[in-house]
């Protein structure tokens, strides 16, 4: 009885010239409250898998069960964060973060107050009436996180949400996201190509091999890293040894290709 069950998922993209198999035989289970990272070289189907779990793409084969129910018909159970904030530039921050609630007809005084409180908690109080372009990159990505969390999704998908930020902002935001998700007890899946980020943030790292995308190996993070914030985890002594292990695995994937 796992929270999210991915069973034998295959996916093939069709174009005029070719049929490319992006994913093959993906079977994976995620428990409630767990933080899992998908790590792998580009072209290994990480983002495709994320889109399939989010219900944006229908897989050619296989099933996804969230709390033992098939995905179709589940709305707003899954929140999705993209590489960039994609806040709507013509809407104020308030309109942006209430967008999900509005689209699903959940907007009322209670949910609105909850969303605005969340904005304050995340350190963005008093900017509700501003437009996205008046904020810095880090602030915008935080506002995007509030937008994603406002509909109270059960599962959070993070598609390289830190990759467009400068290093310092990225480290701070990793801590903030990790803390926020812990507080709300959210289950999350992070797609990244940054080994350090995967180790620092997750409970489990799933390494993908490319063409076609398959699960190559799963690394369980030791308890002493799980309990630390991402920033402190990066400084922990076991961090670098795990980094080396995963690095070698990735290297072997690359050499195996040639």
């Amino acid at each position, binding site marked *: 009885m796992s929270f999210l069950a991915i069973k034998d998922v295959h996916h093939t993209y069709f174009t005029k010239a070719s049929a490319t198999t992006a994913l093959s035989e993906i079977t994976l289970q995620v428990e409630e409250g767990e933080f899992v990272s998908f790590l792998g070289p580009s072209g290994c189907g990480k983002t495709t898998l994320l889109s399939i779990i*989010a219900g*944006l793409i229908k897989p050619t084969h296989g099933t996804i069960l969230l709390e033992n129910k098939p995905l179709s018909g589940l*709305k*707003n159970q*899954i*929140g*999705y964060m*993209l590489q*960039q904030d*994609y806040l*709507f530039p*013509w809407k104020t921050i308030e309109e942006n973060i209430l*967008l*999900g609630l509005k*689209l*699903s007809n959940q907007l009322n005084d209670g949910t609105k107050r909850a969303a605005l409180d969340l904005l304050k908690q995340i350190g963005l109080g008093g900017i509700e009436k501003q437009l996205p372009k008046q904020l810095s990159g880090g602030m915008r990505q935080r506002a995007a996180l509030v937008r994603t969390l406002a*509909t109270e999704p059960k599962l959070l*998908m993070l598609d390289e949400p830190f990759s467009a930020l400068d290093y310092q902002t990225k480290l701070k935001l990793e801590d903030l996201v990790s803390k926020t998700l812990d507080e709300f007890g959210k289950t999350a899946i992070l797609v990244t190509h940054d080994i350090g980020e995967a180790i620092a943030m997750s409970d489990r790292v799933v390494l993908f091999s490319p063409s076609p995308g398959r699960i190559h190996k799963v690394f369980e993070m030791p308890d002493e890293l799980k309990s630390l914030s991402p920033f402190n985890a990066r400084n922990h002594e076991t961090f670098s040894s795990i980094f080396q292990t995963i690095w070698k695995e990735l290297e072997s994937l690359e050499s195996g290709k040639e």
Partner: protein
Amino acid sequence: MSQGKNSVNLLHKNYLHSLSIEKRWVRFYQGVIFIVFFSGWELSSQQRWIDPLLFSSPSKIWNLFLEKFHDGTLLSNLGVTLTETVFGFILGTLLGTLLAALLWWSPMLSKIIDPYLVILNAMPKVALGPILIVALGPGYSSIIAMGAIISVIITTIVVYTSFKEVDPNYLKVLQTFGANRFQCFKEAILPASFPTIISTLKVNVGLSWVGVIVGEFLVSSRGLGYMIIYGFQVFNFTLVFLSLLVIAVVATIMYQLVELLEKKLIKE
């Protein structure tokens, strides 16, 4: 320290001064061109260097302007043409946007209709004038239709292109919130294309003037286009020039108004 600041202030003042001098020179030469053109026209007409029957003269046009202004015919003709143009270009822009929305809604329809759009766009729309007049009757409706039809296809093509170029990630955000196609259109596609729609409005102002004036050439018994044709038929070229100048002034004002609207609607 404060000395350094003072000198920066001074330099800045000098810079602003030089800017305003440059602006004054530009205005000066613009005025010179205006005066030289009109006084040259007047002079060569009086000296009969050019045929005054054909090219008239500014003083004759001015006198005719005063006369037509006082007997009210100029304003009523202008009113007719202006109304037709405004309706024409608003109708053209709205219909074009609506058609673009329809094409976005159904990719299948857009594929089917694509070659027809190309043909319609390439065809000179004023050539449809006689058919419109027969179909809608000689009157306001066929002239407004001319003003609209001349801009509708190009609006459709430009706006549809801008609909398609909206960053798909905005749609992805909406889809993860379970938005349907109508919500995607309302929340992302339409507002993102708003600047394009406003700028087609600017192009359409000019196009609709063409459509309406040609329409009036063909049918009407009122309006500035009619004044041109009437002046031409009775060989009163002063009347033709008067109408041309009025059209130039009013069309410019209209264009400026749309530009003002653009600035208001698209907040920087």
